[in-house]
């Protein structure tokens, strides 16, 4: 059934500001509609993701709007409905796990099973232990668990009462890479099995890309874009989204010419001229364009027709090793614009570049995003 969310939450500098009608210091305007799928809420810290999650869970009360999950109205400002947290039937996993330190794993997992018989409880806890591969830990206390184990227990505890929706607030931010990857797979698998909406907060874009069915991009308290990972990563709607999803090369531009027959538009960013695909732009209009760092091509041999193909002479300013790839800062010779390219290590070994070297860089027009 999914969920429909459309609410506002305002924060004031001082309590009295609200009565005096002074503008709120921060306003969250959360509006999105998703199905029974894995949804990543993505944005910088302070963009409103956690506030959104807390409003949906009922830990915070919105100032207005409506929240409906699986057909159940959680909050409706006009009808004065504000279901208490306890009655929302949700699983919530906190960033720091929030496992009860004075209870062992078994008691932690069973804590949400209010009103179940002890036999049913036992069965359910065992099922959860199995589902998350933490059998044998049931008598341990949280302080005796590793980070990954704690997270698994937190998930088991949240899932035990069969919630209608699962909310996860940066659940893996304190875990190492390998544990993270395993748990991401686990979350995906659980979502498929249970068929409930799962909201997952992260500010890590690799995580967002690998785990999500849908991504909701938050910036400055507003939903900027909602779409599949491919849509938001390769076709960001605006500057904020582009920056958030790791598009390191973004430039403001003015449309110099539109060539309808060839479907090409000529953009000018200060001294830089670049040809992009026609997307209905008009001459004289101001716009922005960007290209992801992995989509820049560093050329080994001379290619002809440089103007038509957006090929520029550049100097290597710096090279940063990212492990499996390298980030190369390139300064274009003619107008000193800086581009960041990301090159896989295997390819980098072939091109043999060093700081200060000259090279050519190609900006493929099919890869350029105009917004």
């Amino acid at each position, binding site marked *: 059934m999914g969920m429909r969310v459309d609410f506002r939450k305002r924060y004031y500098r001082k309590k009295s500001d609200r009565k005096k009608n002074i503008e709120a210091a921060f306003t969250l305007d959360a509006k999105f509609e998703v199905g029974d799928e894995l949804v990543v809420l993505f944005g910088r810290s302070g963009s409103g993701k956690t506030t959104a999650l807390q409003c949906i869970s009922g830990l915070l009360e919105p100032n207005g709007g409506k929240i409906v999950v699986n057909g159940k109205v959680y909050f409706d400002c006009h009808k004065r409905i504000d279901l208490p*947290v*306890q009655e929302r039937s949700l699983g*919530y996993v*906190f960033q*720091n796990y929030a496992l*009860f*330190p*004075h209870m062992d794993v078994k008691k932690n997992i069973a804590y949400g099973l209010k009103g179940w018989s002890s036999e049913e409880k036992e069965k359910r806890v065992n099922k959860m232990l199995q589902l998350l591969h933490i059998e044998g830990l049931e008598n341990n206390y949280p302080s005796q668990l590793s980070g990954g184990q704690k997270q698994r227990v937190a998930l088991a505890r949240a899932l035990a009462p069969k919630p209608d929706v699962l909310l996860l607030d940066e659940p893996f931010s304190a875990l190492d890479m390998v544990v993270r990857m395993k748990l991401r797979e686990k979350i995906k698998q659980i979502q498929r099995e249970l068929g409930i909406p799962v909201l997952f907060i992260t500010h890590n874009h690799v995580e967002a890309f690998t785990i999500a069915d849908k991504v909701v991009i938050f910036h400055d308290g507003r939903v900027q874009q909602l779409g599949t990972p491919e849509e938001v990563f390769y076709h960001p709607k605006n500057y904020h989204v582009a920056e958030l999803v790791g598009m390191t090369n973004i430039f403001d531009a003015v449309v110099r010419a539109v060539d309808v027959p060839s479907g090409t538009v000529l953009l000018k960013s200060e001294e830089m001229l670049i040809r992009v695909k026609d997307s209905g732009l008009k001459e004289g209009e101001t716009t922005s364009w960007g290209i992801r760092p992995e989509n820049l091509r560093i050329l080994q041999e001379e290619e002809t027709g440089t103007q038509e193909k957006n090929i520029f002479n550049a100097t290597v300013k710096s090279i940063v090793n990212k492990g499996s790839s390298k980030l190369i800062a390139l300064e274009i010779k003619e107008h000193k614009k800086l581009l960041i390219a990301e090159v896989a290590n295997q390819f980098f070994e072939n091109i043999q570049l060093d700081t200060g070297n000259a090279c050519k860089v190609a900006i493929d027009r099919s890869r350029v995003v105009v917004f």
Partner: protein
Amino acid sequence: MIEQIWFPLVITLKIAVLSTLVVAVVGVVISYVLARRDFKGKWLADILVTLPLVLPPTVTGYLLVVLLGRNGALGNIIYNLTGWSILFTWEAAVIAAFIVSLPLMVKTTAAAIEAVDREFEYAAFTLGRKELETALFITLPLARKGILAGIVLSFARAVGEFGATLMVAGNIPGRTNTMSLSIYSAFQGGNNELANMLVIILVVISLLSMAITAKLVNTWKV
């Protein structure tokens, strides 16, 4: 001599244990409300509870006499209903001990409750537990070290209470002569042998209560 020691010892423990029991229950409730709820006049409630900590015990005692005396606001009601005058009884000493030890209980416990991460409570709410259940099974157990510290301090304060007790309960031999009061009387009357014995017993009681607490806390992981 044994009788001169035995009665003060029993009456002191009776007063201290009773007042500490009441302080523990009332103190935990007040502390929870002060730590976790927002309401109008909270600052005033906080000041009222803390006041006996800064007032000289004789002043607290005097105010209690005014309140509990046969013509006092509360004393009058009690007298009219039961014909019983509470002043100069051991029960009055319990009230005095309660009032002077309450701020110690509330200050320690409220700080311990405030130190409990609210995320534990939020987690309990999302697991379907109401606030009362959450307070009883999550918040208070996690604050138990602070609660115990408050109880021990309150007990010690009650055992050692002098000024307010003298004002409301007097120092009536065989009725309200607690250990602290008896030490003073023995010393005044030049009975140094008795004073020494009473002092040794009080020191032992204090050391024991501290030692037992420390042992207990050491077995708690959280």
